[in-house]
């Protein structure tokens, strides 16, 4: 009896102690006004909206444009998908009235695509245009940029296969996948996101506290420190006077592709698994390799010869899965790139975004499924 009373007292006080800390944290957040940056689960409403829009599109051709920050433009400026849409209007056939539905966020590569592929398929696009950014092939581990929370959206029937895929480079381990799956399957992703939101905002309370103390003490110590570090970051992002990747940064993100990959490489295997799912769903896919600033790489002493080996491997993997492949990795010169992440310019001439859009439009128009649609329409008209 005494032991039971002690246990009950312990549990009740444990919960009370936890509650006191929770309330204190809420007060600290309210008083500090700390915010947070975007998180992976923030994009789920956007994905669901994207799915609805694709489904509700009754146009002649629904194109799902999937990729990373290369596709994302700046507000008020054309993006690669919008430039592609514009260029499609100059093509013949069903593509002229096609609608491009783009879905993109930073570093969204094969691992994240594999996790969300069921969501993408459920949108029922007519064609999938899938970006392959060689930078997502590493060797740098993606960690949190692999969006491990997305692994909760791997459907139960694919869990065994997913368990055997090498996804750990993206921070997706089996235990995380099962845990997130448990949350998503029980509709608890919202609760999880609420907890992550609190954790992220509490983490940022210090960023609010230091400038506040500086202001109180009439000091500039914090501002100076931030300024020095910001200037250092800017300095390191410039090579020969232009915003370009340094040698170590280039090797960090492109090293694997530069060394020449074969199909056994972990991220290529995951990429293959993505294509397999699209094929199972009967969705035609066009894979395009995003442009790489090969001029700049050569200028800093990096050989780009073996990129061709990597691209050839990706082509073989793509075509084995019945998808189509276009290679844009070396089509552009240095003047169309705007930064060290190989993002394209959009306001200067030559305009990299518009040029890539034109090439993509031509590639989409030349896709076999699109051509077959064109012939079917022509037959119907006769």
């Amino acid at each position: 009896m005494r032991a039971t009373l002690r246990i009950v007292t312990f549990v009740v006080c444990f919960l009370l102690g936890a509650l006191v800390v929770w309330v204190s944290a809420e007060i600290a957040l309210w008083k500090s006004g700390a915010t947070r940056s975007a998180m992976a689960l923030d994009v789920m409403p956007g994905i669901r909206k994207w799915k609805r829009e694709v489904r509700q599109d009754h146009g002649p051709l629904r194109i799902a444009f999937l990729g990373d920050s290369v596709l994302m433009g700046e507000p008020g400026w054309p993006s690669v998908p919008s430039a592609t849409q514009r260029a499609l209007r100059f093509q013949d056939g069903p593509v002229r009235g096609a609608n491009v539905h783009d879905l993109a966020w930073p570093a969204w590569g094969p691992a994240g695509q594999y996790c969300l592929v069921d969501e993408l398929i459920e949108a029922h696009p007519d064609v999938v245009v899938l970006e392959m950014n060689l930078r997502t092939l590493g060797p740098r581990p993606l960690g949190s940029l692999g969006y491990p929370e997305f692994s909760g959206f791997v459907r139960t029937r694919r869990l065994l296969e997913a368990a055997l895929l090498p996804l750990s480079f993206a921070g997706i381990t089996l235990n995380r996948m099962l845990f997130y799956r448990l949350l998503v399957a029980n509709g608890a992703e919202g609760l999880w996101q609420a907890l992550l939101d609190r954790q992220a905002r509490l983490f940022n309370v210090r960023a609010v506290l230091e400038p506040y103390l500086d202001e109180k003490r009439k000091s500039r110590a914090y501002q100076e420190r931030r300024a020095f570090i910001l200037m250092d970051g800017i300095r390191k992002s410039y090579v020969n006077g232009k915003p370009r990747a340094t040698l170590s940064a280039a090797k960090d993100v492109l090293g694997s592709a530069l060394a020449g990959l074969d199909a056994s490489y972990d991220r290529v295997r995951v990429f293959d698994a993505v294509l397999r799912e699209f094929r199972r769903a009967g969705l035609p896919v066009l894979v395009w390799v995003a442009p790489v600033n090969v001029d700049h790489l050569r200028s800093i002493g990096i050989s780009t010869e073996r990129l061709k080996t990597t691209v050839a491997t990706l082509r073989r993997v793509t075509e084995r899965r019945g998808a189509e492949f276009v290679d844009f990795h070396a089509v552009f010169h240095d003047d169309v790139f705007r930064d060290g992440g190989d993002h394209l310019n959009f306001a200067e001439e030559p305009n990299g975004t518009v040029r890539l859009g034109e090439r993509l439009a031509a590639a989409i128009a030349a896709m076999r499924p699109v051509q077959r649609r064109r012939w079917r329409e022509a037959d119907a008209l006769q």
Partner: protein
Amino acid sequence: MLFNSFQFALFFLLVFAVHGAVPRRLRPGALLFASLLFYGLWVPGYLVLLVGTLIGNHALLRGIARGRRPRLFLAASIVFTLGILGVFKYGAFAVSLSSPLVRALSFAEPRIPSFVLPLGISFYSFEIISLAVDVHHGHFECPSFARYVLFVTFFPHLIAGPILRGNELIPQFETGGQRSTARTRRGLWLFTVGLAKKTILSDFLLLPFVNEVFGSPGAANGPVHLVAAYSFAFQIYFDFSGYSDMARGLANLLGYELPRNFEEPYLSRNPSEFWRRWHMTLSRWLRDYLYVPLGGNRSGKARTLANLLVTMVLGGLWHGAGVNFLIWGAAHGLLLVIHRLVRGEEHRPKRSHGFKDACVTLLWFQIVCVAWVPFRAATPSDTLSFLRGFGNGGYLRGWPLVPLAIVLFAGALHVLERFLRERLPRVHARIAEAGWGAALEGGLLGAIVMAAILASGAGVEFIYFQF
């Protein structure tokens, strides 16, 4: 899975319940299953590697125990184990070091292998070797295969130590674990305090500033670099000692004891004392299985000093495949050599800590903090930039107040740890007897656990996680 994750909490609750429910003689089997499941829930493929390594090594261990050519079997076990460790951990490093030569000879860029480091490989490799040596020397009998696998894979210590000896853990399995109220309470406290050290002190309070300054070495002023060096010293300590406390706490909850791994190392007065207090199980492994076999202090002064240096350099390399870890190990090796030269034979100062000792302790702490710089910096050139950063501007202004306050707080806690370690068992016993004891413990533990949950941020891994 990380100890500070919800999925581990679910896993452990299940294991704790099942372990307590099954008959005592079945507990080792239940633990073995749980440990293999724990490892497989990370990357299943590496479970195959681990089990394969253990099958091979157990066969060699039986060869050692049989007594026919035991040295050959011991050598084979060491080569086999270190070979696997070498490929996974040092393969890429070796290729990148040799790439200028390969490029010159063949005009081709060598392909640098890309492996995900199997979880805990550095730790379990050392345990496999230590058991093989102990069996060879007759200090321990060859255990059964099941006990052997459980010894290596026992999940509380599998991913980041403590590095155990066979005679420390295997005999405990025979009893099926001695669970008791006192041990359970101690385990709860150890785990919770370890969780707080890791998530609140290391990740929440210290890590952001460390990342900020080490991410741009040489950019900010001298005081910022100094405080960043102090911050990292405490960050790595709380991160690793926090993990070790969690491991010991989990073992206690299951009825087992694991040895301490830290004894307030920053209160040391010299390098020799530091290495008796920092990562104690690694230090003793290096002493008993590397330094002593190299000759220890039995082969003359020059050889002794060389053995010290080699041991520490290899110890540095164990921590990571990179030039920076070599530099860190060599720095500590040199410090030990200098200390041995100055002090003569290994000097163990007496216990008391007067004013002179406090000054010496502070001085040694500065040296340790500077020595940590190559361990944390990304590259040797970042190390140099950071060290140059100590000389940026004066030290009269520009101190980062909040990080400095956190460092002072961390230092005070470190001193408090020494005080509590000696007095806590009595305090704990008094609380257990008191009527309000359950309420106080429940309230405190609940507050700490919730604070740790809220401070968890992005679930930062232990620094030693993939060693």
